């Protein structure tokens, strides 16, 4: 193991339940945001003196504004069905990482101040006072939830711990306790337009470099246009696609598909980010502000359609919320859903026979596919429920010869989180990220043993970054995680492309 200090939980399939390790993850805290980062999002910079009253009052406000919050806090019967469903519980054994126990950290306080039973019989219903220790506990354990919704699938009432986590983070933000990673990033989007703080000039240069790379590689000039007014399609993609591996290979894939289908498209420097961390901190207002950038870019550029690149939570916000947050989109072409996913676009082109592939280009990969939580459990692709599972698989199978499924209880709606979602993709939470990835890694090991699987594809920027970091801890290469459009990019035959046979012929002619 490269780095010996982190303990990697070993586990067999089917997923075994861990022994209880009470307090195992107690006190784990991601870095807190600096005052200016909180203030930039409209929150108090530091812990306000009347935090207790504020927090209690805001809790009451949330119950009025959000039915999920109120109903979920009221109706849990403590049946225990969700207790073994969270990858962080499976990976850490800390009982406070069981979904219902995580909800109870907040429910116990909500009950104390906002319900009859909790006000008059707190000991009976497990209600407790709000104290500074409780705030600490919230900050710790509500940053050990990736808002993946796996628990919601298995709860008889669909109680979604992610909603409670978001609410808890929102309450913390409202009393002046923000998380550095998420809040800093949201601030950058408000200011510059993307998570990286990458200015338009640098973006332009990056895209030009990529165009050169593609031409060197294929001999075909494939464009990556930026801010082109009058283009048909606005592509909004996570900014990781501009610089990180394997994300960037996915971006090249989108460009090749657009090229082959003859699409007129553009990226925008104003809305150069698909990710929307406003979701992670449960802030409707911040999520809305980030989404409105996309609307403005679409209006300014005069496009007809909006397409999103590969990103999990971004697709949730796009598919499920964009119409709410930044709609209505009646200025776009009504013949296409708003927004569309790049995979919907590519799959449609494949079905219409517009793309040609040489599948053998991916023969060095034995593939499996990781369903990203937010795509799987919080959105859809295509016209049918479950299209979010079929369309990525269809595309992979169209471009790869070797494809195998991981065990059923870990895919599709039951998929296991990568361990880095929900705003936890920060180095200060690395220990949690490694442990949280262990159930997924266990399932992957199973298909590696059974079928010799070497690579896993994903369609989420966070999954890709997280896996490239943690897979080495589990004995895989860091490039064992690939973009789906990277596979498309490998196999696609561009019109006029120099193929290997051409090369060989050319070489012979020269002899």
């Amino acid at each position: 193991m490269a780095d010996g200090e982190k303990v990697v939980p070993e586990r067999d399939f089917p997923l075994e339940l861990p022994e209880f390790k009470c307090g195992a993850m107690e006190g784990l805290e991601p870095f807190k945001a600096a005052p200016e980062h909180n203030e930039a999002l409209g929150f108090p910079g530091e812990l306000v003196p009347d935090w207790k009253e504020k927090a209690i009052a805001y809790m009451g406000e949330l119950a009025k504004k959000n039915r999920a919050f109120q109903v979920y806090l009221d109706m849990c019967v403590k049946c225990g069905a969700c207790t073994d469903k969270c990858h962080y519980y499976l990976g850490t054994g800390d009982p406070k990482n069981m979904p219902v126990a995580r909800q109870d950290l907040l429910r116990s306080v909500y009950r104390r101040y906002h319900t009859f039973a909790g006000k008059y019989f707190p000991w009976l219903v497990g209600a407790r006072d709000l104290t500074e220790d409780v705030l600490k506990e919230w900050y710790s354990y509500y940053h050990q939830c990736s808002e993946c919704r796996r628990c919601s699938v298995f709860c008889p009432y669909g109680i979604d711990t992610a909603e409670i986590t978001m609410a808890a983070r929102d309450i913390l933000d409202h009393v002046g306790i923000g998380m550095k990673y998420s809040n800093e990033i949201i601030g950058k989007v408000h200011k510059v337009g993307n998570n990286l703080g990458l200015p338009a000039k640098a973006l332009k240069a990056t895209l030009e470099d990529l165009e050169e790379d593609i031409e060197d590689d294929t001999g075909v000039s494939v464009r990556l246009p930026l801010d082109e007014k009058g283009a048909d399609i606005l592509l909004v993609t996570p900014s990781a696609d501009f610089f990180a591996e394997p994300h960037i290979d996915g971006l090249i894939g989108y460009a090749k598909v657009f090229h082959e289908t003859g699409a007129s498209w553009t990226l925008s420097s104003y809305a150069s980010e698909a990710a929307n961390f406003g979701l992670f901190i449960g802030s409707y207002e911040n999520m809305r502000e980030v989404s409105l950038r996309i609307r403005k870019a679409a209006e300014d550029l005069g496009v007809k359609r909006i397409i999103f690149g590969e990103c999990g939570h971004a697709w949730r916000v796009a598919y499920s919320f964009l119409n709410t947050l930044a709609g209505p989109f009646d200025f776009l072409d009504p013949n296409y859903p708003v927004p569309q996913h790049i995979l919907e676009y590519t799959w449609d082109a494949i079905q219409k026979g517009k793309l040609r592939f040489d599948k053998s280009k991916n023969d060095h990969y034995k593939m499996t596919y990781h369903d990203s939580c937010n795509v799987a459990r919080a959105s859809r692709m295509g016209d049918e429920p479950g299209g979010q599972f079929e369309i990525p698989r269809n595309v992979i199978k169209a471009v790869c010869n070797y494809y195998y499924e991981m065990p059923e209880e870990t895919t599709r709606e039951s998929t296991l989180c990568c361990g880095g979602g929900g705003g936890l993709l920060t180095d200060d939470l690395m220990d949690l990220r490694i442990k949280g990835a262990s159930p997924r890694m266990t399932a992957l090991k199973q298909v590696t043993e059974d079928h010799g699987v070497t690579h896993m594809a994903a369609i989420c920027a966070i999954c890709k970054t997280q896996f490239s970091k943690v897979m080495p801890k589990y004995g895989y290469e860091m490039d064992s995680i690939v973009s789906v459009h990277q596979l498309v990019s490998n196999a696609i035959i561009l019109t006029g492309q120099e193929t290997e046979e051409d090369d060989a012929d050319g070489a012979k002619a020269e002899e």
Partner: protein
Amino acid sequence: MLGTIYALLFYVATLLLVVGLVRKIWIYARTPAPLKIPTTPAPTTLGGVILRMFMEVVFFQSLFKSNKWIWALGWMFHMSMWLVLLRHFRYFQQHVWWIVELAQPFGTYAGFTMLIGLAGLLARRFLVNRVRYISAPSDYLMLALLLLIVLSGLSMRWVAHTDIIMVKNYMTGLLRFQIGDLPADFNLLLHLTLVAILMIVFPISKLLHVPGVFFSPSRNQVDNAREKRHLAPWAAELEK
């Protein structure tokens, strides 16, 4: 005397149950869900949502996917309870509905399956450390309350019979606001007291899962976010 005390108890309990539940349902119905959050794959039509809800309420579909033990015990308990409740209608009706007649033979034995279900759930609470960890005193007490109701009920049916004609006259009388007499049997009085307690705690306890399940946004929303704009009234204010 006894008749008057219990009449009062039941009038108060009924009032608290009805007012409490109507109030909660009213609040749930009026509280907006600001965003589309169905757990997907979700139905794309209202008909589909009704079917999904039906499968959840009648068969506990999601619970079946997650844990066969809880499902088996919980489903047995709930379905038996409905049969038992249905059977109880005969104590409130002069002319018994055919459906109540139909349930009669099953209802008699449903008491036992309800008992098994409840006892199993209670055992899990003690024995499974994950469930023990998340249980508050009220969680044990709720099961104990239901168990005692079932046991006192079963004892009247199988061990120490009470004067059931007299009970029926008393109950039908209450419906017409006429207070009669009750047999002074320990089992009966225990049974009635516990039922009244159940009615009173219903709207202030986790029994709110009964109305709640129908208002859960992750289960009752149609997956049509791209086609139809969903906007909460308070969110619409932000656009002004």
